[in-house]
C-alpha cells in the first residue's frame, strides 16, 4: 500500500488519467513477481550448494574375525583408513568413531593411561567411548558392526549409535564375544 | 525444389557468392558519390525503408526456416554450438537495417537542412535518469536473463567425447567467433592469418578514430557524409568477418571441404585442390623456363607485385581518384589508412586468385615469408 502511495506521489499524473487501482496493481504485480524471482534465484543458489552425489571412500569395510582382537584391546588398525577404532570390551566388540564429540578433532589412544585423549581441547574418553575429561559433551559414537556369514565383522559407518540416546544396546551396535 | 536447392548449393560456393557479394556490396553501401548514384538508380536505397526491411527479413528469416525442412540443412543448423551463429545472422541483419534506416532518415533531414533526429534543443530540459533509464535497463536485464534461462532449458550445451589428442574429429573447428580466422588459414600461412591479421584488425580498429577525424557525423546515425568509412568498415565486418564465420560454420564439412547448405556432409567428398606458386606460374608456364635457383630471383615477380600493391597503388590513387581525400588526410594518416585498406584487400584478392588460377603463394620463401 505504501509503495502504491509512494508511486502515486512520484507519478506525474497530469498526462494520464489512470484509475489508481489499475495503476497500482501493475506495479505491485511487477515488483512482487520480481521479488519472488530474486527469492527464486537465492533458492537456486542454495540448492546448487548441496551436492546430489558424493565420492567419499567406502563406508563399509570388513574388519576381520572377532578372534583377531585380544580381550581389552583397542585396535588402531583401521584408524587411518576408515577412521574407526575396534575395541574389545568385556563381553562385546564395538566400532568407535574417531571423531571427538566436542569439535571433531581426532583423539589419540594413550595405551599407558587407557584413554583417548583429544589434542585440541583436552577431552578424554575411556576405552568404551565414555567421556570423562575436558569439554566433550557426550561419549564417542559407535558404528554399526555385524557379523557376515563367514564370521567376519562388517563395519558400516553410515549408521551410528549414541549412548545418550540409549542406542548402545542396539543389537547392531556390537558383536558379542 | 530439388533444382532450386541445387542452384543455391552451387551459388553459395564462395567462388560465386563471395564474388557476387563483394561486387554488389559497393552498390548497396556506396563508398563514393559515383556508386551512390548507381545505388539510387537501382533503387537499392529503398531497402532501408520499413517495406524494404520487411522484405529483407521475410526473405532471410523465411528462407532460413523454409530451409530447415531440408534434413541436411537442419542437421548442421541444429547443432547447439551453431545456434548463436543463427542468432548472429538475424541480429546482424536486423541491426544493419535498423541503423541504416535511421541513417537514411537523418540524411534526408540533413539534406533539407533539418537537424538529425537525435538532436535535442539545449533549451529543452534533459531527462532524469531515475526512473526512466534505470527502469528500462532493469527490464532489459531481466528479459535477457529469462531468455537465457529458456534458451538453456531448450538446448543442452554440447559435450563430446573425452579429449583425445590422437584422434582429431573431422572437421575440427575453432570456436565459431574465430571461424573467420580459420577460413583465412586456408588461404594464408598461419603466421599471417593467425597472428598478423588479428593484430592488424585490432590495431586497425584502434587506429580508426585517429584516421577518421572529420567532426561531422558524430553522435547520430548518418550515411552519406561518412560513406567511404562506413562502406569500408561494413565491408570488413560483414564480408570478411561475419560472412566467413557463416561459411566456416555452416558450409565447411569433413576435410574442410566446402558443402552447400543443402548438401550432405559426405566424408568421401573429393575436391581437386592442387595449387601452384606464382613463381612457377610465371617462370614455367608463361616464360617456359626452369625455376631459377636464387630464391630472390625466383620470387621476383611476386615481390614486385606485392610492392606495387602496397607502395605504388596508394600514391597513385592519392594523386588520381582519391586526390581530395588525400589532401584532406595528410601524409601519415593517408599512409596508415591505405596500408590497412590494402592489407584488408589482400584477403579477397588472394581468395579470388586461389579460386581462379589455383594460386598457392604469391611469394614463397620457405621459413621466411609465404604470402
Amino acid at each position: 500500500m505504501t509503495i502504491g502511495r509512494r508511486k502515486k506521489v512520484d507519478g506525474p499524473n497530469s498526462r494520464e488519467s489512470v484509475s489508481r487501482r489499475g495503476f497500482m496493481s501493475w506495479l505491485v504485480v511487477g515488483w512482487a513477481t520480481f521479488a519472488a524471482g530474486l527469492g527464486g534465484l537465492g533458492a537456486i543458489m542454495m540448492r546448487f550448494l548441496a551436492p546430489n552425489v558424493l565420492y567419499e571412500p567406502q563406508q563399509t569395510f570388513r574388519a576381520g574375525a572377532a578372534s583377531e582382537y585380544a580381550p581389552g584391546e583397542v585396535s588402531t588398525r583401521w584408524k587411518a583408513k576408515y577412521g574407526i577404532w575396534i575395541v574389545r570390551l568385556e563381553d562385546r566388540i564395538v566400532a568407535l568413531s574417531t571423531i571427538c564429540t566436542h569439535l571433531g578433532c581426532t583423539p589419540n589412544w594413550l595405551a599407558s593411561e587407557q584413554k583417548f585423549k583429544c589434542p585440541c581441547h583436552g577431552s578424554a574418553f575411556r576405552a568404551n567411548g565414555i567421556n570423562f575429561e575436558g569439554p566433550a559433551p557426550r561419549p564417542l559414537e559407535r558404528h554399526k558392526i555385524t557379523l557376515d556369514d563367514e564370521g567376519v565383522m562388517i563395519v558400516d559407518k553410515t549408521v551410528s549409535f549414541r549412548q545418550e540416546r540409549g542406542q548402545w544396546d542396539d543389537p547392531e551396535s556390537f558383536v558379542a564375544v | 525444389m530439388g533444382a532450386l536447392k541445387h542452384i543455391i548449393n552451387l551459388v553459395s560456393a564462395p567462388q560465386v557468392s563471395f564474388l557476387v557479394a563483394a561486387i554488389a556490396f559497393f552498390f548497396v553501401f556506396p563508398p563514393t558519390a559515383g556508386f551512390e548514384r548507381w545505388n539510387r538508380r537501382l533503387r537499392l536505397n529503398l531497402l532501408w525503408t520499413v517495406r524494404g526491411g520487411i522484405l529483407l527479413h521475410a526473405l532471410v528469416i523465411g528462407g532460413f526456416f523454409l530451409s530447415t525442412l531440408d534434413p541436411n540443412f537442419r542437421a548442421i543448423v541444429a547443432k547447439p554450438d551453431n545456434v548463436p551463429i543463427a542468432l548472429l545472422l538475424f541480429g546482424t541483419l536486423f541491426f544493419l537495417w535498423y541503423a541504416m534506416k535511421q541513417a537514411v532518415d537523418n540524411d534526408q533531414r540533413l539534406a533539407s537542412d533539418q537537424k538529425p533526429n537525435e538532436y535535442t534543443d539545449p533549451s529543452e530540459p534533459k531527462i532524469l535518469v531515475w526512473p526512466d533509464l534505470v527502469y528500462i535497463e532493469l527490464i532489459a536485464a531481466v528479459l535477457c536473463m529469462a531468455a537465457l534461462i529458456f534458451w538453456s532449458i531448450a538446448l543442452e550445451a554440447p559435450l563430446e567425447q573425452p579429449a583425445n589428442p590422437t584422434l582429431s574429429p573431422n572437421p575440427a573447428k575453432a570456436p565459431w567467433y574465430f571461424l573467420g580466422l580459420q577460413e583465412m588459414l586456408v588461404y594464408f600461412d598461419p603466421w599471417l592469418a593467425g597472428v598478423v591479421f588479428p593484430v592488424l584488425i585490432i590495431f586497425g580498429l584502434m587506429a580508426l578514430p585517429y584516421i577518421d577525424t572529420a567532426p561531422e557525423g558524430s553522435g547520430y546515425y548518418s550515411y552519406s557524409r561518412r560513406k567511404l568509412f562506413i562502406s569500408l568498415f561494413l565491408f570488413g565486418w560483414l564480408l570478411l568477418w561475419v560472412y566467413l564465420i557463416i561459411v566456416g560454420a555452416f558450409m565447411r564439412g569433413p576435410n574442410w571441404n566446402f558443402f552447400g547448405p543443402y548438401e550432405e556432409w559426405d566424408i568421401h567428398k573429393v575436391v581437386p585442390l592442387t595449387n601452384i606458386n606464382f613463381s612457377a606460374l610465371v617462370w614455367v608456364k608463361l616464360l617456359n623456363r626452369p625455376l631459377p635457383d636464387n630464391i630472390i630471383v625466383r620470387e621476383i615477380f611476386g615481390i614486385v607485385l606485392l610492392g606495387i600493391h602496397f607502395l605504388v597503388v596508394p600514391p597513385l590513387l592519392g594523386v588520381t581518384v582519391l586526390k581530395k581525400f588525400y589532401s584532406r588526410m595528410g601524409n601519415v594518416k593517408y599512409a596508415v589508412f591505405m596500408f590497412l585498406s590494402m592489407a584488408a584487400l589482400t584477403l579477397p584478392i588472394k581468395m579470388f586468385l586461389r579460386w581462379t588460377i589455383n594460386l598457392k603463394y604469391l611469394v614463397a620463401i620457405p621459413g621466411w615469408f609465404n604470402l
Partner: protein
Amino acid sequence: MTEDKQAGFWARFFGSTIWRSIFRVGIPRDRRARLMQVLSNFFLHLHPVSLPKHAVKLKYTWCMGGLSFFLFVVLTFTGVLLMFYYRPTIEYAYNDVVDLRETTPMGIMREIHRWSAHLMVIAVWFHMFRVFMTGSYKAPREFNWCVGVVLLTFTMLLSFTGYLLPWDQLAIWAITVGSNMAAATPFVGQEGPGVALLSIGNVGLIGRTSDARFLLLGDTSIGAGALLRFYVFHCVFFPLIAVVFMAIHFWRVRKDGGVSGPM
C-alpha cells in the same frame, strides 16, 4: 482498512535512524530526490543524473553496451558457481562436466554460462557496430573506442580460454588449432618466420620448449598444464584485466561527455 496504522508504522520505519543511515535519500518523491537517488547509489552512480532525450531511447543505443555488461555479470556469477564443482585436472575435468548434466543440482548453470558467453560476444559486436554507425568514436571519444577494442579482444579471449575447460574433443581440438597459431608467431614461435634470428651463435633461443606456444600452454602439447593454465587465465587473469578496462571504459563514457549526440 488498517492503512493508517500501517502507514504510521512504515513512516516510522522509513524514518528510523537505521533506515536513513543505509538509504540516504528515501523515497524519490520529487525531482531532487530522483536526482539524489542516482547520485547517492553506488550501483547507479555510473549514470549521469540526467540525459538528453535521444540517449534514453532504445532506438539509439539498443542497450547493447548495458547488456554486454549485464552478461559479464551473469557470467561472473555462474562462473563462480561452476567453480564449486569443476576441477581443472585431467582426471576430473571431463567427468565433472558430465556430472553437471547428470547429478549436480542446478547443473543448468553450465548451459547458462556457455550461452551467456556466446551472447556476450555477439552483444559486444553489436555494441561496436552501433558505436561505429553513430560515429561515436570521434573526438573526444577516440581513446574510449580503443579501450572498447581492448575489451572486445578480451571478451573473445575469455570465451576462447573457457572453451578448453570441458576437456572434450570439441575443446581440445579448437584449442589445438588456436594454440598452434601461437607457434607461428613471427620471431617468437618455433614455426614462425624469422625464428632463426633469435639465436646466439648456433644456439637457437626459440624452440619446442621456449616459444610463444610453450608459454601459452605450459607444455609442448595440450595436456594437464594447459588445462590448468587456461583455467587460471579464464577465471582470474583475464577477468581481472577486463574489469579494469571496463572501469576505464565506463569512467570515460562519463568524462567524455556521456552518450554521444549531435552537436
